[in-house]
Each structure stands twice: as structure tokens, then as C-alpha cells.
């Protein structure tokens, strides 16, 4: 009808012939197109869909008809997702191999071999994730992204808390030099003092840090004492320790406690620990302690220098057992 601007049915303009419209579309330059391929906004959509939209379709080729969310949760344990998808042989194999590697890695923890075994156990877990991600019917980049994402997720959700928890109770430490009763290459476990699992007290064997100090010795010799040592706490804050002829007295009372290496103990020491200090007779210094002029001074170790309680000898396996 004359005077009508748009079609009453479809709404299309009826003035197209007279309208002044630009019919040449805007164009993107070569560099703009290249930049857009790395455009964060575009990738943010992809990332969002990868995280939300794609997760429910995790099933993929092998695992069609499998609910995705339970599958996703089961990625936390190697082989569990495969068992859930009724690929039991593969699942149990992965789980068994992982458990075996982890057990041996724990047995040899602190050694190079133990680190290799731990790496293989993690690789086994990664293989379990790869198997699930590889079944996703999508491009390489997306699958690699999913794999990295899941691996990161598992690392954050499983391994980071597990690692944090484990180091509250046991941190391996390799003995670098012979210091009886330990030998170079031995591995001991200690519980960090800050974790509160085993707070240091008299009688405990502890890992402690020597104060960095120069100390005078005979024949114009000076020793620089530094680094970490392992020895027994003989007395706590405020207590007086008298060590004479291999006998220990704490506050005037005889004590059955003794330093770890009796052969390298100072001959006579009379020292009183101040508040916040422990008394440790340094028998594992690796130097002639009797040559040091002020053995009493270095026997007083501040509480903050006690790193943790050494409670277990882990390597070699022939001497596996509790440190007493």
C-alpha cells in the first residue's frame, strides 16, 4: 500500500530501492585477523565452554553413554575413571601400577631412585587422564588444553593438599657427611617443628640449625660453624646441664639422656639454657669439639633453630627403623 514503509507480514523494508545504504561491508585487516586468532575475548568464550560446556561431554568415543560428572570426579584417582567406564582391565592395571610405584617411591623417598619412581607414579596418573581426554572427539589443541586443565586440577585438588599434609608429618632429609650413628647417604624423616605434630622436648633427636659463628680453638685455629645437624635435646628452656666424664646431670639430677655420638662429645660442659633455648651437646659437628674454646655457647640452641624431630631412619633399608 502506498505510504507503508515495511511489509506487514515479514517486516521487510519497502523503501530499499530509494534508501541510501552502504552495501560494502566493513573489512578486517590482515593483522587484525591475525591478532583476533589470539584474541583473549574469543578465547575466553572457548575457555568458558571448555570448562563448562564441554565437561559434560567428556565421554567421547570410548566412553559414550557414561555420565560425565562422576567420570570427571574419578579422574582424581588413576584408573578409577576407566573402571567406572567398564574398562576394568585397563583401570585396575593403571591403579595397580600407580599403587605399586607409589609404594616403592615411598619406600625409597629422599633418594634419586625414589624420585624417579614418584615421577613414574605421576606419569601413570597422567596416562589415566590422557586416556579419558583422548577419547574426547575434538581437535588436538582442545584435547591438549583439556589434558593440561585436568592435570592442573588434579594437581591442585589432590597432590597439593596431599603434599602439604604429608610434609606436616614427614620430610625426608639425606645425610650428606658421616656423623655417627648416621652415614653419608642415609635418609631420615623428620616432622617439622612448626607443624606441631611432634613439638621438641628433652630426649628427642632433632634436626637443628647451627648458629653461623666463628669460634676460637687451640693453636690459633678458628672454626666457622654453620649448617644443619642432628642430635639429641638434653634439656629444655631454663634448665642447667652439667656434662662431666660421660655423665649427664640436669638441674642437679642424673639423667639417662646422652648425645648421639658419645665418642665426639665435649669433655666437660656446664651450661644453662635461657628461656626459648634448648641444650644440645654438639657431638655431630664433624670437628674436634674439645678443641673449641666455648663448647657451652654452641650447646645452647634457640627454639627457632630446631627444625624438627627426627624420628625415622628410612634408608638404607637394612637400618630401617625408629631413631632413638
Amino acid at each position, binding site marked *: 500500500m502506498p505510504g507503508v514503509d515495511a*511489509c506487514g*507480514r*515479514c*517486516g*521487510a*523494508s*519497502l*523503501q*530499499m*530501492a530509494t*534508501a541510501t*545504504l552502504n*552495501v*560494502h*561491508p*566493513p*573489512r*578486517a585487516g590482515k593483522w587484525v*585477523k591475525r591478532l*583476533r586468532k589470539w584474541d583473549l*575475548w*574469543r*578465547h*575466553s*568464550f*572457548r575457555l568458558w*565452554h571448555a570448562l563448562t*560446556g*564441554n565437561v559434560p*561431554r567428556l565421554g567421547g*568415543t570410548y566412553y559414550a553413554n557414561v555420565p560425565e560428572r562422576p567420570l570427571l570426579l574419578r579422574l582424581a584417582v588413576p584408573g578409577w575413571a576407566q573402571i567406572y567406564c567398564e574398562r576394568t582391565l585397563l583401570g585396575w592395571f593403571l591403579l595397580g601400577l600407580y599403587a605399586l610405584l607409589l609404594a616403592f617411591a615411598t619406600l625409597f623417598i629422599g633418594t634419586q631412585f625414589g624420585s624417579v619412581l614418584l615421577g613414574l607414579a605421576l606419569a601413570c596418573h597422567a596416562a589415566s587422564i590422557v586416556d579419558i581426554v*583422548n577419547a*574426547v*572427539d*575434538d*581437535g*588436538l*589443541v*582442545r*584435547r*591438549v588444553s583439556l589434558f593440561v586443565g585436568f592435570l592442573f586440577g588434579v594437581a591442585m585438588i589432590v597432590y597439593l593438599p596431599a603434599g602439604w599434609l604429608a610434609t606436616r608429618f614427614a620430610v625426608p632429609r639425606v645425610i650428606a657427611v658421616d656423623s655417627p650413628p648416621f652415614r653419608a647417604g642415609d635418609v631420615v624423616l623428620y616432622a617439622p617443628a612448626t607443624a606441631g605434630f611432634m613439638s621438641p622436648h628433652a630426649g628427642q633427636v632433632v634436626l637443628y640449625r647451627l648458629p653461623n659463628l666463628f669460634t676460637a680453638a687451640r693453636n690459633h685455629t678458628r672454626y666457622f660453624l654453620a649448617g644443619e645437624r642432628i642430635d639429641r635435646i638434653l634439656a629444655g628452656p631454663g634448665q642447667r646441664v652439667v656434662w662431666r666424664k660421660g655423665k649427664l646431670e640436669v638441674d642437679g639430677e642424673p639423667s639417662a639422656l646422652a648425645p648421639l655420638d658419645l665418642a665426639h662429645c665435649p669433655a666437660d660442659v656446664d651450661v644453662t639454657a635461657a628461656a626459648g633455648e634448648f641444650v644440645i651437646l654438639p657431638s655431630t659437628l664433624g670437628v674436634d669439639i674439645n678443641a673449641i674454646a666455648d663448647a657451652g655457647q654452641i650447646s645452647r640452641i634457640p627454639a627457632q633453630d630446631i627444625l624438627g624431630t627426627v624420628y625415622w631412619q628410612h634408608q638404607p633399608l637394612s637400618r630401617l627403623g625408629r631413631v632413638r
Partner: protein
Amino acid sequence: MARFDKLELESQSPAGSRAVQVARPAADDVDWIAQADAERRCGQYENSLRHYSRALELDKSLVIAWLGQAQSLVFLDEFVEAELWSRKALESFPNNSELLAARAQALCRTGDLKQALAVCDGSFKQPGQSAYRWIVRGELLVASRQDFDRHCFDKARLLDSDWLVPLEAALVYLHHGFYSRAVERARQAVEAAPDRHYAWYVQAVCEIELGLDTRAHSSLQRCLELSPGHVEAERRMTDIRHRGFSPFRVLRRFFGRR
């Protein structure tokens, strides 16, 4: 004249046929559209876009030209512009199903799947059927990693037996990295039009991506037979001949496409 295209006339036979004649664009427009279509069938989307624009200069009411422009922009990887352009065309042709589909495709390629799905749904609510709408629907399913994309592309083929339909489905799969599915569609296009070099070329690209170098080589040979001097085909042929070690390819083999 174009402004009377959508008039509903009572008389059907002689007057109706005249109306159809009137509805047809002028000879020049037809030529430009035909040239644009021919270029599109050769994979020359830049030329195709230019010809569609020429057609629109003569007649702005040609929906097919607006649509062709948007589609060409999509194939030229100018998704933002395609979305903008289809939106602009929709201002003149509101609720046009094809333009809605074109906008959905552009949105999908920009990565905004949610809005793309909404626009695509809007397109399907419009009356009528077309292969392009099903192709776009298929692409959305591919992009959102849902099954049933095959059914959409099969439906598109049922609606339009043109070889360009499976070929554009192959291009969709190629864009989203589903090479094994892309090669299947490209093969359908080659079977439907073995004399079209572009179909052979797209098939070769899919085969190269799948690592089927021997097959890709023969596909490129067919392409070069039909279109001697095809620059891209020659370049890819040279790449195949001088292909060395590639860690990316090894990685791809490791992850293995299905």
C-alpha cells in the same frame, strides 16, 4: 521492481508468472549474483564478496546478496564483520531466516555459542526450510561438541542436492578441527561434482590434516588437472613433497584423531 517483490496478488497464472518475472532482479544483478556464486564455488570468497556488493549496488533488496556477503565474510575468517553485517541486513529484513542463520554462524565462530544458539533457534522458528540453516545448526552442534551434527548436515543435503552443501559442511568441520568428518563430507562433494577443482582441493586439505599424504597428493593432482596453476594447491603439493620432521605432527599422531 524489488519494492513489489512481496506483494500478494490475487490472480495466479498469467499475472503470477509476470509477478515472478518482475520479482527477478534485473539482468545485471543476476549476472553479478551468478558470478559471485561461481567464485564461491571456486573458493574465491574475496571475489565473491565483491560481486555480491556489485549486485547490491544495483538492487539493495537482494536478500541473497546480503546473505552471500555475510557468508563470504565468514569464510574469509572475518567473523566480527560478518556478525555486524548480518545484523545490519536484519535491520532491513527483520526475521529473515537465512540472515539469522548467517548471524548465528558468525556468532558461533566468534565463540559466543550461547547467543548463536539463540539466534539459530530464532532462525528455525521462521517458516520454510533451507539447507543453509541446517548447516549452521550442524556447525553449532559441532562447536558445542554435541552429537547429531551429522543429522543436520544430512538434512541439509536432503534439502539441497547441490555439491556446495557437503563441501561447506566439510569446511565447517575443517574450521573446528574435525578432519575425519570433514574428509567424509568433502568426499561426498567430490562424488557429486568430480569436475570441480575446489571440491578436490578441500578434500586434499582434509587428507593433509589427517596425515594421508598419498591420498592428498592424488587429490591435489586432480585439483591441478582441473585448475592448472591453482596457487594454493601447488603450495600444498610442494609442502607434501618436502615435508620433514614436525614435532607438532608427532604430537598429533600421539593424540590420534578419530
